[in-house]
């Protein structure tokens, strides 16, 4: 059996947040506006946070990237009333967007705050914002610059999410599917990786099959002390951290 997981080596991590932005671009995750931000509606499938201890001059801090942990016992899956969120046979916690009723139960159930609600439809909203602008910049033959009516950089491999549903990290499932279809190897260091893993300048992240003893993730987990976030909650995260 395949069981995908990730190992994040915090000693390598340089807190650059390249992973976070790469995830946004790869998965066409809605960018916020200052208003969204104030209302705490940031969509960050992948985020980088800092925890501090002590204060100057005896201060230390650690910077950690956080993503969905693809928990072995995912509370979000347990609570979904329509089975929209499910645990795939390869260990990835996925979501059927077309089934989600937007009850947000999974959001309150996830102990890691890794699920995000679409408060509006980005494409529609942008359209509204840009319509007047578009009128101004029509060419003679009626063409409108692409930026003005839609989000031109939407990754065609991932489905757009509509207003009212919840979304989260998919372990870049579309990449893995594509790799499978093309018969490519999956997993770090030389196979297909999720966007954040591939993007990381510090090679902080290692992705692969936890059930394969020869995979890079398994080797790392054997060779160094590792821990999971909030292991006390019994969720069994499949994202592991090394200090």
């Amino acid at each position, binding site marked *: 059996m395949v069981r995908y997981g990730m190992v994040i080596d915090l000693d390598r991590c340089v807190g650059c947040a*390249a992973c*976070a932005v790469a995830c946004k671009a790869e998965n066409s995750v809605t*960018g916020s506006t200052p208003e969204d931000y104030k209302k705490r509606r940031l969509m960050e499938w992948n985020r980088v946070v800092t925890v501090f201890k002590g204060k100057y*001059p005896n201060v230390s*801090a650690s910077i950690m990237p956080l993503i969905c942990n693809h928990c072995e016992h995912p509370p979000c899956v347990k609570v979904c009333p329509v089975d929209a969120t499910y645990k795939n046979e390869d260990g990835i916690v996925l979501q059927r967007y*077309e089934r989600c009723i937007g009850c947000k139960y999974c959001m309150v159930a996830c102990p890691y705050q890794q699920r995000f609600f679409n408060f509006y439809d980005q*494409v529609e909203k942008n359209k509204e914002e840009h319509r007047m602008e578009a009128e101004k910049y029509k060419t003679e033959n009626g063409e409108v*610059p692409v930026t003005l009516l839609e989000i031109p950089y939407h990754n065609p491999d991932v489905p757009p999410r509509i207003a009212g549903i919840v979304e989260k990290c998919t372990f870049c499932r579309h990449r893995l599917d594509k790799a499978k279809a093309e018969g490519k190897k999956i997993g770090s260091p030389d196979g297909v990786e999720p966007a954040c893993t591939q993007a990381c*300048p510090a090679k902080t992240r290692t992705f692969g099959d936890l059930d394969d003893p020869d995979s890079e993730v398994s080797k790392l987990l054997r060779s160094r002390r590792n821990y999971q976030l909030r292991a006390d909650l019994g969720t069994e995260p499949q994202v592991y951290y090394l200090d």
Partner: protein
Amino acid sequence: MALELKINRRSFLKAAGVTGAATFGYLSLNQPVIRALAQGNEAAGEEKWVSSVCIQCPAGCGTKVRVVNGRAVKIEGNPEHPYSNGKLCPKGYAGLQLLYDADRVKSPLKRTNPKKGQDEDPGFMPVTWDEALDDIAARLKKLREEGKSHTVAFLSGRNRGRAGAVWGTFTKLYGTPNNLGHSSICADASKKARMCIDGTDDYCAYDWENCNYVLNFGGSTLEAWRPTNLMLQRWAYMRRGRPVRAKQVMIDTRFSTTAIKADEWLPVRPGADGALALGIAHVILTGGLWDRNFVGDFKTKGRKFVTRETVAKEDFEEIWTSGLVDWWNNVLVNFTPDKAAEITGIPADRITRIAEEFATTKPAIAAGERGAGAHTNGTYNHMAIHALNALVGSMFATGGVMYQMGVPYASLSLKDDDYMDDTAKKADKEFKEHKLERADRAKSDEWPLASNVYQNIPDNHAKGEPYKLSVLFTYYTNPLFSMPNPQRAREAFKDVFIVETSSYLSETALYADYILPDNYYLERWQDDTVYASTGYPVAGLRVPAVKPVYNSRNSMEVIIDLGKRMGGKMGEYYNQLGSFENMLHEISKGFEKTPGDNGVSSFDSWAEKGAWYKKPYLYRFSGGKFYEWDGSGYNKEMKTTEEVKEEEKDGKKVKTTTIKDPVKDKLLKTKSGKFEFRSSKLEGLTDRQKEILKSELKSPEFFAYPHYEEPHFAGKEEGFPLHMSSPKMITHAEGRGANTQWLQERFGVVVGKGWTNWVELNPDKAEELGIRNGDEVWVESPIGKVKTIAVINPGNPPWMVVFPFEHGHWNYGRYAKGLGANPNEIMVNLSAVISAQSCTNATMVKVYRA
């Protein structure tokens, strides 16, 4: 299901994007569709990956752009480019949102409202390229005829690859000395310091891979510096990628990302880096820890320097350095760790320990950037820092420092010198004879060694000294925003005819009389020779990934087009040149002779791979000697040779001896051919120049030495109690880049704040000031105050106020405008002596609740 599977990628995109995803999402977001799309088995749209080079910050990382149906949908690192190695920093990935920014300048614009000001609506009117360029050409021609060609200035920031040469040629042929750059508000202090003591006016390249100990004086390794992305990669490699873990010591006035991740953080007092470096040098010399192969030794073996005891010159034999004993006797002899501790706030025993580690954990690098440099004493700070590399023998050594090699482009067959008409020649001659000054007065007796004095242009113009400017071209720089106290420029430039090339409505663009929008970097051809880092040469190439989204043109092509319209010899030159693309084709012929390691040997292969590079670095210092690469190893010793030539001249035999010193020619380019602890460059200035420079020093007697100059802080005398530093965040590139949602929302990675900047305060200090986390506060300096938000950072030293750069835009599109505050607006314009480095960290402020 049948319905779903029929949807091919093209109609998927269309449906998703245009007809509104609401209905679509409900009907057909079933997994099979996604799978079908992912596999691309249907009539998938055209998909390609185009090579390009990121230009958000000066790193110049190679990228690959995924283009589907003519749209750029993802930017990734180019594995072929040795700076990116398939990776990018966060800004690189966010480039899509810059390309498709709906607020870009969409066509050439002409100003209709002659009045200029922050609140003045320019009344921009779209015009055609022909209209705009003809009008500008006519204006330039007229000024030439009136003998005022020198009042036209070209101000540029990010000149990449040949861009600098394109501007240089234009100014030269037009007849103005004013090809002005922004390097003085950037990081000239470190460059000029090196020029003074080792002869190279450049940033260093560093052999990070092999280095075991890093002493970093205010180089923001993990947030800025250069080349950011590669620094991030190297950092991780030095920590975990190899058997020996390098030690990182970060000297910074704030608890930066680098300080968080480093083994040790030394919270130095602002502007005191030079003192710290001297204290370390003192320990190295008194401890007998200097590198004897590079520096030399006492004639009496085993002898060390002794605190407060001078040394006789003849007792010490130097090898690759000069002036050590003078330096010791004048500067270092009393500069004990205790004295350094007093100035820097770092305990003496810690300084001693760090110095000992640094000198014994080889190879070691002492480096830094604007932290140490952007102070009034910045140039001297960097001289002291760089001197440490010589003391421990890191110059050109494995794991040490070096200088970036140039790219062997073919030179153009067309020589611009041949196309200078009388006006052009006159301007050139007068400038060389010091009869004509530059608008920024660089190269004048006041600033004999500075490359640019960007930050003084507004004052000079306002005073009419040396003269008033009539026309100002701005390329990739935003003087109305990014320089200290930009209000000066906002006042002074009201009567200047400004031609702005930005693709964004920058602050400067609001003052423009014409905006000639440049293509965005994903839309244009441009070469990119990188900033120093690897040592070996690298040249990237931007290939247009998409058609220009709006009616914009590559500024390089525009300036060539403008040249053609100038007529005369100038026009002839540009007609001959044809286009910038031609130019790129021509220079790339150099690769035919020197193919890159990845097989790039022509324009086409360059465009395909996106990067040309040739390893290895050619020089190496080892075991007391310099060697050059001979094709298989560092085997060729770089020895001084004497060549005696006998020639028949006027019937007589003449013997000429030429001494060839390859080390002096190629590596240590000082007068002595040595690393100079006593700068011959400074001592060689004219008396008048020295007099002016010394008059600015508190310790003029040490003028020629790396020494500690007491820094000057604006506002200190007026009783402003807190030091303000204005660093860069990983999420922005100087004054540009505030217009992307993806970067804005995580602007402060460490403090967890988005969509604004803030001031960071120490928790105890904040309590004393009655300020809580998130409060609105005023930050006030002697020249004004701005309002922003307070962030209580437990790591902040009590005397520091950290006020990140980037926000406070009053233009620049919907995602940048009106957020946060611009620290520059309260930053007093100070320049470092010698380098003219503008002092970002030298203003003092007070903070109180708004």
